[in-house]
C-alpha cells in the first residue's frame, strides 16, 4: 500500500483535513470520507457527469481526479449551493419546471449549470444544451432541464437588474 498523504481541502466552505492514499478518487473522498453524498457515480469512463463538482472555479468530474490532485483545492458540491430552507435559484427552478425525476443526475446537473450561468448569464437554448453536454440524464429527455436552466438564468438576470 502506498504511503498515505496529509490532505487539506475546503469543501462547501469548511476546512477538511485527513490522511488518504493518493489513489483515492475525489468522488469517493466526498461520498465515503466526508459523507457528502449528493454527487453520484454513474459510470467509470468519465462520461456521465453525475459526480460533477466545482473545483477552484471549474466544473470537474470528481471521478476523474485523485484526492492528491485536489490537495489545497476549494470544492463546492450541490450541498454547498443551497439548503432545503433556502434553495439556490437553480434548485428552485429544477423543482418548478420538473427538471428531475429519479434525481440521480440532478446534483451534477445543477452544479454544472451553476458554473455555466456564471460563464454565460443569458444563454440560448443551444448554449445550454452544449454547455450541459458533459452530463447525462436517463429520465427527463433533457427538455425540462433546459427549461429549468433558462428559467433560472432569467430569474438571476432579473434579480441582478433589480439590484443595480
Amino acid at each position, binding site marked *: *500500500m*502506498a*504511503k498515505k*498523504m496529509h490532505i487539506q481541502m475546503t469543501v462547501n466552505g469548511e476546512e477538511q483535513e485527513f490522511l488518504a*492514499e*493518493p*489513489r483515492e*478518487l475525489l468522488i469517493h473522498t466526498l461520498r465515503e470520507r466526508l459523507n457528502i453524498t449528493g454527487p453520484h*457515480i454513474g459510470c*467509470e*469512463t*468519465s*462520461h456521465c*457527469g453525475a459526480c*460533477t463538482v466545482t473545483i477552484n472555479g*471549474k*466544473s*470537474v*468530474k470528481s*471521478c*476523474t*481526479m*485523485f484526492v*492528491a*490532485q485536489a*490537495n489545497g483545492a476549494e470544492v463546492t458540491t450541490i450541498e454547498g449551493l443551497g439548503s432545503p430552507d433556502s434553495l439556490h435559484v437553480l434548485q428552485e427552478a429544477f423543482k418548478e419546471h420538473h427538471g428531475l425525476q429519479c434525481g440521480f443526475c440532478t446534483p451534477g446537473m445543477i452544479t*454544472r449549470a451553476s458554473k*455555466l450561468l456564471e460563464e454565460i448569464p443569458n444563454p440560448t437554448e443551444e448554449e445550454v444544451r452544449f*454547455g*450541459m*453536454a*458533459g452530463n447525462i440524464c436517463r429520465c427527463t429527455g433533457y427538455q425540462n432541464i433546459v427549461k429549468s436552466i433558462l428559467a433560472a438564468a432569467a430569474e438571476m438576470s432579473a434579480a441582478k437588474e433589480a439590484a443595480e
Partner: protein
Amino acid sequence: MIPAAFEYHRPKDMAGVLAVLVEHGDEARVLAGGHSLIPMMKLRMADVPHLIDLQDVDGLSGITVDGGRIRIGAMTTQSDIIGHAALAEAAPIMREASLQIADPQVRYMGTVGGNVANGDPGNDMPGLMQCLDATFILVGPDGEREVQARDFYEAAYMTDREDDEVLVAVAFDAPSGGYAYEKQKRKIGDYATAAAAVLLVKDGDTCSSASIAMTNLSDTPVWSEAAGDALVGTSVDAAAIDAAVAAMLGDIDPTQDNRGPIEFKRHAAAMILRRAIARAWDRA
C-alpha cells in the same frame, strides 16, 4: 473504477519532474489533466507506480501570440484555448477544434500537451498539429529538443517522446487563409469516426497553399501531403476536390470498430474532407 496504488509526486519545477522520471524510468508517468490517464488507470489498463502531477510546475501553461508565432504551453487546457481571444484571432481553427473535443468538464481539465502526447489516434489535436506543421518542444535530462508534429507519431500510443522526456509546449506559425476542422462523431464526447483539418490559402481564384490532415483513420494521425498538393494551383473545383479526396483515401488506413466497418469509415472520411475543404475555401 478503482486504480492501483501509486506514489504521488508534485514537483515545483522541471528539474523535480525529470529527477523522478530518470529515477523510475517507464515506471513513472506525468499527470496533466488526467482525463485519458486516470480513466486508463481506473480500468487497470495503465500501470503507473509513480505519478508526477505537473500542476505546480511553473511555466507549463499559457498561450503567447508573438507576431506570427504561436506557442501554447503543454498544461494549457482546452477551455483556455477556447477562451483565448488573441489565439481565436490568430488561429481560429484551434478554437473550432477544441469545441469538438470531449465536453465542458473534460475541457476544463484536459490539456493540449496531454492531447498531443497521449498517442491515441482518436485524439483530435495531433492531426490538427500536423495540419499546422507544428513543432513539439520536449525537455529531457539532456535539455530541450524539437520534433515536428509530422514526425512525432509512430503507431498507436507510440511516439517519438522518450520515457524520460516531457512535452512542454507546442508552437506553430499563425495560419493564413481559410480553415476548417470537421468531425463526424456518434455523439458529444466521442472520438471521431472521421475528422479532417484543412488550411487553404487563396490567391485570386487559385489555391496557392493547402494542408490536410485526418484524425482517427489510421493508427496515427495522417497528414496527407498528396491531398493538399491536389488542390494547389487549382480553383478548388469539383475535379480538384475529387483528386484531393482520392489522394487522402490512398493515405489513410482505418480499422473496423464499433464506429463502423472500414468501407464506411472511408466513406465518412471522404464526406468529411469534402465538407472541410468547402468550408475552408469559403473562408479563404
